[in-house]
């Protein structure tokens, strides 16, 4: 019979380290999917996931069991991803010249007639990824959680540990930052 998360956590706390492997096996697909939102290279993704589970093991004593284990783990994951973004701030000096022909073409079509630009185009996806990478860690985290994962402000506050008003302020600033990044990619012409 399969053990519940609470039983597995209790077993790990009692010294049964092998029980933690069951928890890892259960939640690793979700944690991998989350980490891939913030890191592109697969080695980085694996490092993030590994760090999340090691932190979870080390801090298991702090899990009080009031919320589901998954929520606790995801909160830990979001904070680890945020730390990763802060530690790996890449050069954000992208310019229009950095755009590929396909991306440039898609952006031209989108600006001329938004409805005609195909939403599923690879160029569009690459452009969104490029824009996200230009954002500051805070802005990227907020845009990802709010706009891409479509989480509520309250959920984001619980995940990040920030207050609800702070999440709202940071979301507002993040949108402004994104607009500026787009301006930097296509100066003069758009936005």
């Amino acid at each position, binding site marked *: 019979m399969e053990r519940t998360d609470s039983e597995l956590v209790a077993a790990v706390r009692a010294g049964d380290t092998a029980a933690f492997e069951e928890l890892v096996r259960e939640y690793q697909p979700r944690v*991998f*999917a989350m980490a891939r939102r913030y890191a592109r290279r697969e080695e980085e993704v*694996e490092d993030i996931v590994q760090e999340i589970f090691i932190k979870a093991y080390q801090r298991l004593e702090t899990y009080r069991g009031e919320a589901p284990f998954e929520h606790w783990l995801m909160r830990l994951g979001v904070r680890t991803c945020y730390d990763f973004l802060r530690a790996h701030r890449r050069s954000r000096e992208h310019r229009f010249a950095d755009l590929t022909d396909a991306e440039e073409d898609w952006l031209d079509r989108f600006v001329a007639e938004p409805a005609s630009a195909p939403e599923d*185009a690879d160029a569009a996806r690459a452009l*969104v990824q490029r824009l996200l990478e230009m954002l500051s860690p805070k802005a990227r985290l907020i845009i990802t959680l709010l706009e891409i994962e479509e989480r509520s402000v309250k959920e984001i506050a619980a995940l990040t540990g920030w207050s609800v008003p702070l999440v709202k302020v940071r979301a507002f600033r993040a949108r402004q930052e994104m607009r500026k990044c787009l301006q930097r990619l296509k100066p003069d012409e758009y936005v």
Partner: protein
Amino acid sequence: MARATPPNDHVPYAFERRIMARLADLPATDSWTAWAGMLWRAAAPCLGITLVLSVLTFASGSLGKQEAPLGEALESTVYAALTEPGD
């Protein structure tokens, strides 16, 4: 469009084994080690604050202008809350 394409949730083969191996390699940390680590991390900010305060104190010249001896000044500060305004 980013919403429509959720990230891949593929897990590398036997990844959980890798995590368990890493956990086995981790050094056991007792509460004293953790406490010492926290103290060590707090040392640098404390030193910085002490330096800044020292510089500010000397820069303002408050030590040179001191009229009352240090003992008296300390006493009046400590008893300030208990002293009547007319005293």
